């Protein structure tokens, strides 16, 4: 009887490992897919543009006040 229980446990562990490996693999594939990569790069670029040109956080605004007033279609205040 104990031997049967051990074999069932080992089968369950193997299945869990297989499932987790599969999920990890799919996640990695999805993350490294072209659309996700393009979206990540676009988001990062957009966030940097926002921080530099459109953020209303006073230290950032004050640091780039002149630059904002000297760039087309950038609202400062």
């Amino acid at each position, binding site marked *: 009887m104990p031997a049967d229980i051990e074999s069932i446990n080992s089968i369950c562990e193997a299945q869990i490992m297989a499932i987790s490996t599969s999920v990890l693999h799919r996640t*990695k594939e999805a993350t*490294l897919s*072209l659309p996700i*990569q*393009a979206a*990540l*790069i*676009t988001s*990062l*670029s*957009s*966030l*940097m*543009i*926002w*921080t*530099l*040109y*459109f953020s*209303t956080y006073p*230290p*950032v605004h*004050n*640091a*780039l006040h002149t*630059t*904002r*007033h*000297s*760039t*087309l*279609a*950038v*609202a*400062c*205040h």
Partner: protein
Amino acid sequence: MGRYKYVALATVATIVSILLWFDPLPSLATQPAVLLQTQPSLSQVIPDGEPVRIALTAVDLRKYPLSNVRFQLQLTTPAKTPWFTSDFPIVEGTTLLELIADAPSGKLEFAQVMPIRGSYVLKARVTPLVAGAFEPFEQSLQLSVPERFVKYRNAAFLIGILMLAGIVSGWIIGGDQAVREGEVASQPIRLVLSFFTMLAIAVLLFVNISAELNSAHSHGEMQPTPSASEQPSQDLELRLSGDQLTSVGQLATQTVQVINKKTGVPKAGVVVKARSIALEDGKQMFAYQGRTDDQGRLSWKEQFFDGSPHRVIVEAEQSIGPVLRASHEVAVEGIEPPLYIRLISLSYYTGAFVLSLLAGIWMHRRFPRTI
């Protein structure tokens, strides 16, 4: 023959109509008018630059200046343009200046900084100081101010950087992304991610260091200065009153009154010079020289559009004796641009990057071996 005559007549009429369409005859004046002159010329005005000297002359039908004229002026800013915003979106579509001024010679001059590009409207209502001297009339004048060239240059520079980054990124991630044994991501992906991570670090470092430096430099610059008054005259007193707290987009009323110290009677006809100075950079934003009315007053409403504190200074000249001077500070509350306007502009610049990214991916797949 008669038929040809009518054809020739119709042809001549058509040609004359076309010529008049392109080059109409000068229209004869049917009513008095207000003539506008600016210094510098409107095509050379720089938004948020030096003050523009605006001279208005009320003339009669024969183009001679009218005398003893009262001007009621309202200067409004260009209409709102959320799809192509200026740097002062709150100022768009608001009133910049309201001024009532008496002009004995029919000529009025003032100086005003134009905050943004676009078409300003100057509404002038002209009435006689002596009842019945002429019929009051109104006129709207257009003042078109061009955009600053440096804005186009900087925008082109920014778009160029975004396009270059987009094309290079697209080229790299558009290539082979096979993950080798022991690697988390393919080499091109790691390369692009590393580049953008370094760029993000550089941007955040620059922003934070600049913010610290600005903070260090600005300590002690914004000391509030109290109202000041120099009244060395024994006879006259200059009183300056009006809004000392306002916000961008709103008009702030300023009134100066000259009274006789001894009798307390208002003094009419005193020449008063009024100006407002931006305290951040010491730039003169508005200037006007006028005469006090029967109540000894001179009033105007102006908008402090840049959201920084200003000082309003008035000076009265006396025929004998020193110049009287009074001033007070006006605190101006800046208003953040609406979120949707900033998001629209962000979408333009992000759009430039996305299009370049797609172009880079397409180029790598279209010309995989040529580059």
